[in-house]
């Protein structure tokens, strides 16, 4: 049934349909709407789930690690500082192979305090062993969240569904909300591969010597590789039932494109508009939207970009002292191929600044008119700083 839903509520509806059993969260803008409605569902009986209130995001993730270890389906949502506070336990959740699902609403990190969109918070967690999916609109958020549980439980790794603050979390769009029976056909109840059981007491996560630890880590690496294949399986199963598919990447007009934008999140939608205008002017432009960031779909990316001359990577994030993070990833993915496009990096929309079609076209022309890229990403729209006397 089509409903007009806020991005946050699209997440919440997916969590309801996934029949999550334990939810824990600590409120933080711009994520709060997600757990706000879920707490209502837990209270009024819409969901048969336990909502654990906690005093911090660190405790929240710890609580979910405990709950998931018992063998139930769990969910949380957070943003910015909250995600940063969870950091230690993000490693733990992945290392313990717990298929926890989280919605992470991208928010800039303080100081100064900023509640608007910026991807640095989630990208700073890229090495924690969590699968990360960056979504473009409300429908994708809902679908990806439902899929996330199946993927997580298949490979025993946690999944982070990432959405832009306000541009997605607080924007109302028509969203097709599936019926519970349909979702049940797609997503069976959680069958844990291991769980705490008082009948067979054991301890998880105890001391592991060098002899075993490295092999355990290698198993996680293998599981992450496997996740790339399983992601396709999950999408196939979902498409068979709901006739919607997103892919780990989406290539738009890439076949004949000479310059390809690399985008993620809601910037993709804006870029689709800029692309129409550029194509109307006869420019051979394209877009490669990256949805799956971990595992990074290197082969697909190489294939989609093999014919292009240049790529313009839009980063709504930055790694100080290096460059935009997507730009780094793209360079790393491409450098060992014999023939690949030149990588131009651009930083735009940091801390919630608007990324307009005009800005994207400006990036296009900058890329087209430059022979070689600068060593680091170019910061778009930087103003002259006026210091107080």
């Amino acid at each position, binding site marked *: 049934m089509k409903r007009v839903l806020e991005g946050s509520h699209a997440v919440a509806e997916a969590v309801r349909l996934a029949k999550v059993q334990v939810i824990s969260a600590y409120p933080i803008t711009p994520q709060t709407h997600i757990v706000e409605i879920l707490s209502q569902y837990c209270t009024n009986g819409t969901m048969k789930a336990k909502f654990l209130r906690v005093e911090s995001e660190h405790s929240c993730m710890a609580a979910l690690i405990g709950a998931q270890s018992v063998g139930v389906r769990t969910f949380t949502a957070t943003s910015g500082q909250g995600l940063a506070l969870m950091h230690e336990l993000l490693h733990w959740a992945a290392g313990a192979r717990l298929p926890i699902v989280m919605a992470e609403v991208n928010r800039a990190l303080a100081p100064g305090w900023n509640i608007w969109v910026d991807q640095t918070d989630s990208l700073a967690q890229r090495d924690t062993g969590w699968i990360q999916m960056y979504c473009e609109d409300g429908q994708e958020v809902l679908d990806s969240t439902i899929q996330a549980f199946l993927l997580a439980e298949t490979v025993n790794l946690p999944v982070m569904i990432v959405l832009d603050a306000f541009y997605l979390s607080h924007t109302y769009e028509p969203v097709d909300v599936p019926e519970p029976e349909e979702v049940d056909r797609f997503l069976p109840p959680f*069958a844990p*591969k*291991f769980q705490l059981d008082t009948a*067979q007491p054991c301890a998880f996560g*105890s*001391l592991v010597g060098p002899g075993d630890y490295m092999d355990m880590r290698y198993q996680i690496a293998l599981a992450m590789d496997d996740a790339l294949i399983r992601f396709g399986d999950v999408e196939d199963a979902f498409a068979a039932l709901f006739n919607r598919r997103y892919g780990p990447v989406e290539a738009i007009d890439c076949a004949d494109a000479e310059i390809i934008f690399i985008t993620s999140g809601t910037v993709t939608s804006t870029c689709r508009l800029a692309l129409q205008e550029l194509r109307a002017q006869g420019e051979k432009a394209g877009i490669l939207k990256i949805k799956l960031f971990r595992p990074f779909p290197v082969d697909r990316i190489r294939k989609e970009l093999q014919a292009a001359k240049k790529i313009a990577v839009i980063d709504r994030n930055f790694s100080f002292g290096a460059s935009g993070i997507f730009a780094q990833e793209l360079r790393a993915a491409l450098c060992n191929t014999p023939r690949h496009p030149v990588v131009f990096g651009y930083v735009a929309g940091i801390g919630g600044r608007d990324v307009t079609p005009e800005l994207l076209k400006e990036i296009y022309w900058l890329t087209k008119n430059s022979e070689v890229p600068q060593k680091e990403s170019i910061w778009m729209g930087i103003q002259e700083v006026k210091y107080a006397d």
Partner: protein
Amino acid sequence: MIMNKYVNPDNLYIARSYLTTESNKTGSWRFLRPCYDEKTAPCSIACPAGEDIPRIEMMATQGLFKEAWEKILIENPFPSVCGRVCFHPCEGSCNRRDFDSAVAIHSLERFIADTAIRYGISPELEKKPSRKQRIAIVGAGTAGLAAAWFLSLLGYSCDVFEASSEVGGVLRWGIPLYRLPLSALRHDIKQITELGVAIFTGKKVSKEMLSELKKKYDAVFIGCGHSLGMPLSVPGENLSGVSEGLEFLRQIRDGKSPVCSGVTAIIGGGNTAVDVARSVVRLGGKALLLYRRRRQDMPALALEVEMALEEGVELEELVAPAVISEENGKILLTLQEMKVEGEECGRDRVIAATGKNRQVRVERILKAIGMQASESWQQADRTDNEILTLSHSVLDSRGREAVMVLGGDIVNKTKSVVDAVASGKQAALALDILFQEGIEAVVPKLQACLVGPGSSLSMEIFMGGERRLRNKHVVSYEEINTDYFRFSPRVTQPRLLKEERIQSFEEIDLKISAHMAMKEAERCFNCGLCNQCDNCFIFCPDTSVILGRDHQGRHINYDYCKGCGLCVVECPRNAMSLGEEKS
């Protein structure tokens, strides 16, 4: 390492152990050892009767009002009286003063006693088996009745001889009803008589009768108090318009209404002086309180002075009577003005301001400058080394006749109700030790029954109660973990309005509700006592605090306790200690 082989056939390579961590006896790492160690509260050593105040308030918090009342009675048979008129030194040493304000211990004591009255409860106290010795008690004042109470609990049969028509001494005859209603006093005394104490009123003990008592009884306790006024030592003090303040109060308590027209001058600055002045106001007269020092030096309770002034009592500071004379049927009082100069005995010294005299005309003068014993045999001979002189009593066990014990106001340094209770208790314990173990055992045995490092005796410790196990260390404010307490205002004592007060002798302090009392009791830190809050259990990272209330009770499993000390730090009340592990 065991590969997962559970529920699902898919194998996951994760750290999983079926070994119990119980095999790792982490207790061997310990070099510090926590233990449950109940300590002494500062209020309990400040109380001359040694009441177990932190325990009493804990019981009140739990709604165990009867048990709280019994807990008071084991140390003090006068909770109803002391809840009203005691100068409550306990509150002065309450650790809570450093946090917000002292717990209203006296209000709670009164509430607990009032509750016992309301429900007509009888105390169930442990009584020792009967002893053969019989004890005569001279004077049914606080000290004598207290001695009878404790001696009865120790198994002795007591006969009390009282000169006046009713028992209670100063409590009955010297304290106005607006501070101590008769019902409150009678209720405390009822508990004593119900213990089997025989009281003979209207039996004044003369020197001759004393000789008889000495033959018939094994011991005689003399607690007849002070009934003779001190002389002013100024010309004219024997004029008919000059009399004793205490006698004035006695007339009122005897149902009479002494004439109070015009201005009455009251000389003194103690509680009796203030009681007299306020009684004069209630009888329609004008009260002029004359004191040779300043208001802040008055021994009377500050609150009593404040209320007296509100009620219209006039206070003149730094004046001493010089000459009293009669003039046209009135009293002409010449006053010497005083001034503060230098120090003596740790307080400001006042001396006469030479040449500064003035005169006041009053209807009568009431003296309230202290009392003394009326007969010489009622006084202790402190020069006799053969006599055992203790803090609150004097024992003479020489000769073949009865042991003579002096107690109460005639020996006490501080002449207060609660010191009189302390005196009766000390005399009772001393006699029991003397009868059972001999005179040499008295001092060391009493020493063993002191509350903490203080000088108050505990009957409970003497009877072998749980309190004897308590560490003598006095808990300081710094040792309380105040994170676990909230700021909470001290209970506001409801009182009659001053317009209502001066109309009658109705009790001024009104009753507080059970709700208010429990809230106030909850403010108590219960310094040094465990109230089973479970913080030690909650915080122990090694699950080594075992509640096991069913058999062993709360204890520490030293096989696993690493001695981190968290339990001790998180104990709000300092009921635990951390010491070095002895190898």
